[in-house]
């Protein structure tokens, strides 16, 4: 890359918070780098300082306890797929992880980076929305917890303020065992951004849908009940989204396929 920047790699979470606080305007956090490095290369982002969050102890911690599954900011998408806890307790999380990009990218890309990037086509967001996950947000001045249903603020925008970073994602223990399936429509069978993606989860009679690539942010739909028909479920999902036409597909095609996927999932996820 021709563009030059400084690289910092704090060794503790507190040091990371302090460094980030000192570079609110000119610093960018580096997790997997699979979005940041191409963006710098293409001139979209021009940070003076790149702050690597993978090098502090605990950043890559992935553990299951009484609170649920705790995902550190350096945990990669393939770490999720290799985790016995994630596979056995959170199949919807793994289904979404498996649809994200290619094997090499999943080896680097982090779950935290995928949601902080806040792309409408985020593949991890649907799982975190349906499973009721929370974002633990840290800064030099403290910590706050925000549910993912309130985390996304717009295209590529989140509620993170300058100086704040996502220090953990917690998928609650209550969501363990939820059945689920993610259907992602792509232009090719291999790795691609989604044209649309629909996840449905079902646990103890509670149904949830989440949709990617269909609105400025990933969308959670929690109004569908067991009493609905498949058509009613699809109507409720469609009423919550506002897809656009772009290079990957038209608004009409997206709406049609969201309906197809919602009906299919409603029938098949038992």
């Amino acid at each position, binding site marked *: *890359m021709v*563009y*030059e*920047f*400084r*690289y910092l*790699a704090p060794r503790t979470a507190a040091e990371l918070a302090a460094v980030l606080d000192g570079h609110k305007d000119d610093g960018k956090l*580096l997790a997997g*780098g*699979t979005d940041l*490095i*191409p963006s*710098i*290369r*293409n001139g979209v982002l021009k940070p003076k300082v*790149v702050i*690597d969050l*993978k090098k502090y102890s605990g950043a890559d911690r992935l553990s299951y306890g009484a609170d649920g599954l705790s995902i550190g900011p350096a945990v990669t998408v*393939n770490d999720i797929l290799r985790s016995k806890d994630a596979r056995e307790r959170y199949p919807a999380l793994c289904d979404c992880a498996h649809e994200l*990009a*290619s*094997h*090499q*990218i999943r*080896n*680097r890309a982090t779950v935290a980076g995928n949601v902080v990037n806040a792309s409408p086509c985020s593949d991890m967001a649907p799982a975190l929305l349906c499973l009721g996950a929370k974002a633990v947000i840290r800064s030099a001045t403290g910590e706050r917890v925000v549910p993912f249903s309130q985390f996304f603020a717009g295209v590529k925008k989140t509620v993170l303020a300058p100086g704040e970073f996502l220090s953990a994602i917690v998928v609650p223990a209550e969501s363990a065992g939820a059945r689920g399936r993610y259907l992602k429509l792509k232009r090719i*069978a*291999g*790795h691609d951004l989604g044209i649309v993606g629909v996840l449905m989860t079902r646990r103890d009679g509670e149904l949830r849908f989440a949709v990617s690539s269909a609105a400025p942010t990933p969308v959670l739909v929690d109004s569908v009940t067991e009493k609905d028909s498949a058509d009613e479920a699809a109507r409720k999902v469609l009423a919550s989204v506002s897809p656009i036409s772009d290079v990957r597909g038209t608004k009409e095609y997206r709406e049609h396929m969201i309906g197809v996927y919602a009906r299919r999932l409603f029938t098949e996820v038992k």
Partner: protein
Amino acid sequence: MRIQLTVNGLAYERDCAEHRTLLRFLREDLGLMGTKEGCGMGECGACTVIMNGRAVNSCMVLAVEADGATIRTIEGEADGPSLSDIQKAFERNHAVQCGFCTAGMVMSVKELLSEHPKPSADQVKEAIEGNFCRCTGYTQIVEAVLDLTGSPEKKGELEHV
């Protein structure tokens, strides 16, 4: 920044610009030109190397991030004039045409076989989904891997196009 890393079993210590990618570092600082740059943004997989046991796109890793890492590149495959088993299988099955994607393909397959010594055809396809080939059309590449591993799925089941 001063970095230390092991590449194909050899320890290196070098000064490296902080914005330099691992790909550029391998090619231009260490002279290991086997790893290729295709798209430079994680689409094509030509730059795939194995970092701490995992296949990664070296165009999207900073060399300074690899401080302390163990790297394998295509140069670590052959032993002098003797090709590795994966390379021999590629040769035997005509899985190489222009060769530009081959280094990355071989590294992706190497990581796959380290975890799954007898992969199914689908597992092979998934392992190389991030590696673009614009010549052979993938079938010979999948056949080469199944030929090498003697996997349960016979290569005749693959569809030639």
